[in-house]
């Protein structure tokens, strides 16, 4: 009888959920993931822990595990009506942009989830008037400065020198820009290159953009608009091959060129003294 009495006692705690969840906020976009497979959520927690934001409204994805190779390596993006499909060899996602709900089948590893998030965030940024850019991002006097350059231009070298000189690095590889209230802002980025840092959430008004080059001496010179645009488009991270994406890339670039100062920064690898030229 004692056992029966115990069973009749009301439960004081809600039953444990079998679902694992994590909410992230990247570049102001809320991304909520839910899965009955804790492996993928654990990877997201480990990799993007600094960007956790429980309950931030935005997109909700039911995540399931799927083995797969990275081939094809380049993600493909298709938008049909409000249905966004993003896929490559090791992940597949379908998201309704109107309701914000969708699904993601992905391999439980950082490379796969990173590729998915880069694809999704780059798509959302372009459509919201912003950019995902191959660039180094630094903070000086409360403003963000981006340094555009493809592989080998010196993004990581510049970032390490700036960090050693005491500057905050937003990312040494991929930076996120949004256009808000008539101005561009750079957002904290979880996407890094050689420095392999975690990044941190936050946002800073954009102070300027520099085209990057290595040299023996530090120098800053003016940069013609056409030249700036060409490098800007080359540094744009975009997997959407639709005409609409091309249109937005040009539209957003024109707005950025009109709103922000562009310069050409040549920097010496000797130390972080080039920071004195950044403006």
């Amino acid at each position, binding site marked *: 009888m004692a056992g029966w009495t115990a069973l009749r006692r009301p439960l004081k705690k809600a039953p444990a959920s079998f679902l694992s969840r994590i909410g992230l906020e990247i570049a102001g976009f809320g991304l909520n993931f839910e899965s009955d497979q804790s492996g993928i959520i654990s990877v997201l927690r480990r990799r993007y822990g600094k960007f956790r934001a429980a309950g931030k409204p935005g997109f909700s994805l039911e995540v399931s595990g799927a083995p797969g190779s990275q081939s094809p390596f380049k993600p493909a993006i298709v938008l049909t009506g409000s249905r966004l499909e993003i896929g490559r060899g090791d992940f597949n996602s379908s998201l309704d942009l109107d309701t914000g709900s969708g699904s993601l089948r992905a391999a439980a590893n950082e490379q796969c989830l990173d590729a998915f998030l880069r694809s999704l965030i780059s798509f959302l940024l372009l459509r919201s008037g912003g950019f995902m850019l191959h660039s180094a991002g630094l903070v000086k006097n409360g403003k963000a400065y981006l340094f555009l350059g493809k592989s080998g231009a010196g993004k990581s070298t510049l970032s390490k020198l700036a960090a050693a000189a005491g500057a905050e690095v937003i990312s040494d590889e991929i930076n996120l820009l949004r256009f808000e209230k008539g101005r561009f802002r750079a957002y904290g980025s979880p996407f890094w290159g050689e420095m392999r840092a975690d990044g941190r959430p936050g946002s800073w008004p954009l102070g300027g953009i520099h085209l990057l080059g290595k040299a023996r001496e530090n120098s800053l010179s003016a940069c*013609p*608009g*056409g030249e*700036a*645009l*060409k490098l800007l*488009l*080359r540094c744009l991270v*975009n997997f*959407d*091959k*639709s*005409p609409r*994406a*091309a*249109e937005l*890339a*040009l*539209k957003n*670039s*024109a707005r950025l*060129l009109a709103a922000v100062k562009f310069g050409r920064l040549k920097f010496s690898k000797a130390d972080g003294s080039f920071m004195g030229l950044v403006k």
Partner: protein
Amino acid sequence: MNVKIKKELAFRRIAGEVFIVDAAKAEMHELNSTAALIWEGLAAGETEKVIVSALISEFEIEEKTARADFADFVEELEKAGLLASV
């Protein structure tokens, strides 16, 4: 000559220059002032005759030169795959 540019292309005049972006091929094209005038004419659906007249008036060149410039540029566009088949 009946010439139509591909509708999948995006283009825009930025900082005084015309840039064309072909997202499907991940290619970008930058046009000089003569090419830009012809491109914008084609994009607006103008005929060769109207565009050649615009070239003559804008650059103060002879009709023969304007026609040759137009034909050369159209050939380049064709080679670059920027024209729609008519």
